[in-house]
């Protein structure tokens, strides 16, 4: 029998299983904690920091922090949500995100987070970085302009596809996604059906020839903000 762990999330008693992360336990209880790099099928990465919560007053990423009996977790507080807003702002100015032209618009988790947090324009100055596009593959686009360095593709390729198509190179502000070939995606074993391609939360990795297939109004986040699905489950 797994041990039951009881803790408080924003004042509400939550019960989870020992070994779960705060995010897993919160999801199970129908409480959404905003996130970007985390994905239910992948090892937690702890890099985007959007899921930052305060655990007994200390900031921790909910995707990596295990639950423990009696901890006090703050998530939906003005202070924590301000941190999240700032981080989302940072991701917007760090890359080149032009939602109005992007095929991912409406289905993009970064854009959806911005809507959830009421961001209309970032408060930080745009960086307009020079980044490379890799269109060499017959079925897949890699547009680094929109990459948020969440590492989902890196993990999915390894953990779900049993491949090694993507990896990070460089460090700091020069950090980029690279592919397992000097000549670009076409010379890797990447396939359009790979999980690594579909897990991208933004428009950095896209399938060719399916852009704008879903009309405005029927896209994932056109009516409900991101996180609503799991919130709805609690009310059912």
């Amino acid at each position, binding site marked *: 029998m797994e041990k039951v762990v009881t803790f408080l999330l924003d004042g509400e008693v939550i019960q989870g299983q020992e070994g779960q992360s705060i995010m897993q336990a919160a999801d199970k209880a129908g409480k959404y904690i905003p996130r970007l790099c985390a994905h239910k099928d992948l090892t*937690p*990465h*702890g*890099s*985007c*920091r*959007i899921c*930052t919560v305060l655990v007994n007053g200390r*900031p921790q*990423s909910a995707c*990596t*922090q*295990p639950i423990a009996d009696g901890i006090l977790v703050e998530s939906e507080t003005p202070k924590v949500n*301000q*941190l999240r807003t*700032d*981080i989302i702002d*940072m*991701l917007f*100015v*760090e890359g080149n995100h032009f939602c109005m032209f992007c095929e991912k618009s409406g289905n993009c988790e970064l854009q959806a987070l911005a809507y959830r947090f009421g961001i209309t324009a970032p*408060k*930080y*100055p745009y*960086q307009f970085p020079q980044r490379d596009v890799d269109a060499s593959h017959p079925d897949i686009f890699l547009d680094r302009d929109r990459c*948020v*360095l969440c590492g989902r593709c890196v993990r999915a390729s390894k953990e779900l596809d049993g491949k*090694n*198509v*993507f*990896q*990070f*190179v*460089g*460090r*700091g*502000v*020069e*950090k980029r996604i*690279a*592919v*397992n*070939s*000097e000549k670009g995606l076409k010379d890797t074993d990447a396939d359009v059906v790979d999980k690594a391609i579909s897990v991208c939360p933004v428009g950095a990795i896209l399938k060719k020839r399916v852009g704008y297939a879903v009309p405005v109004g029927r896209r994932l986040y056109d009516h409900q903000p991101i996180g609503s699905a799991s919130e709805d489950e609690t009310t059912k």
Partner: protein
Amino acid sequence: MSERIKAVLDPICREVGNDRTSLLDILREVQHRCGGVSGEAVDLIAKRLNIARVEVESVVSFYAFLSDKPNGNVVIRICDDIIDRMHGSETVARAFESELGIQMGQTTEDGKISLTHTPCIGMCDQAPAALIDDVVVTHLSSDTARSIVAELRENPDPTRLVKELGNGNNAHDLVSSMVQNNIRLRGPVLLADFEPGTALKKALSLSPVEVIRNVKTARLRGRGGAGFPTGMKWEFTRATKADKRYIICNADEGEPGTFKDRVLLTEYPDLLFEGMTIGGYAIGAAEGIVYLRGEYAYLRKFLESVLERRREEGLIGKNVCGVEDFEFDIRIQMGAGAYICGEETALISSCEGLRGDPKNRPPFPAQSGYLGYPSSVNNVETLCCAARIMEHGPGWFSSHGTDRSAGTKLLSISGDCKRPGIYEVSLSTSLKEILSLAGAEDAQALQVGGPSGQMVGRQEFDKTICYDDFATGGSMMVFGPQRDLLEVVHAFLEFFVEESCGYCTPCRVGNVLLKQGIEKILDGKGEPADLPYLEELAQTVKMASRCGLGQTSPNPVLSTLKRFRSEYERRVKPALDGRQPDFDLSEAVAQAVSIVGRESTHS
């Protein structure tokens, strides 16, 4: 695949058993032999280690001392920290540039010499300094820069540049360096005589649990800056059930302005190795690793020779000191130019041959560290202290310092002071005393703990160095009245931008934004609203970053906004006519003006 590359690479890979965890060693060797790690080399290494090429590329691109493009036969790296700049490193850099006919970051056309910058190399007490391959040159001037270039052109062997040897073991055959120790004040704990074996033999007469108890009784806390109780760390590591455990010495002294471990490694290697052996005995480890920063490669052969001697004397190896069943050995892992590797989990990643990314915690290294085994990572000075506790007893150790901050602390003092160097002071010594020891009574500010620490002004010089007041790894940078403190803040932020691993958003992006915010004010384009903007941004980076780098990198901004706010206020001005102060109307309409052919009526 060219046969030449194969001929070089294959033996290197074979030597380490084609082991993936030795990737950093392989890459360092390839870099050294070939001047770079080419795409072809990446492919071959990947094949030999049976990993993806992008994994190899990922590691190469992470470390500053590795490059995918070929460097010159000799690489000159000019130390670019703020202290070196204050001592004229920029003039020296210009002299190198003009003498070589190239810019920073370039290689001469004949492929012989590359010139670049590097962050603090641990020589602030003899600045300006540079690394020429592994050779340290100090007290540079434009003249010496010119003669160095002339000599290197004649003979590319940089060891010939060392004309006069430094003091102590710097003059040892295996070091042969011009580095000076600059020990200015010896204290009773660290910088005192040591007879190899004395501490270890006493420790081995106790049980491991008793050793840990003694370290706890002595109230030893980590000397790297964080101040975690060493005895507890050892206890946790010992308590994790495992087949193997590791004790790792953090000799990646990268905090700008600190160089005390350099002196301990040069003059007290036996004390350090003894501390590691004692730690290994205490936690139940058979192997110790010294993670030595790439900048200190000039000490490697000497340290290896000390280890060899200790093996011969039975102080490490099988049955240490005749104690059956206690086997312990130490190896040196070289770093390759990455400040972040001083963070303990990043250091472990680097030891495993990975990018120096910090790991997610939990698990903590005491639970799952190097290769998944419980590991204790301790600072050089901490391990030296542990050896002294065994030698003289915990009561003797804790009789120095205060209740909560026992023992002494090594300080590396540099900058605007008459006597830069190493000082061993009792914990709880006041900043005022420290400044007077170093000959810096007129200091306007003291940077305590390096860029990640605090900038402190005169009104707080009565405060002390200890875990309750100003905890510090020991970097003390003095800034005289003539220095522009905002320029200092800017230099620190440049450093953090360069050294952020880029793993998490707030550190990767936030430090760039902080730097730009300071630049805006330095350019005279700041407005009053920039102060709260910087404060909030700095708090976000501090709160949301994943590891100690991002949690402390905003400190230069926060501590100066708190203590030197007037430095900001005197530069910012309210926006005119509702425009942003950095908006230049005539520049904005310049193109239109040139097309129209007449001046704008609005500017």
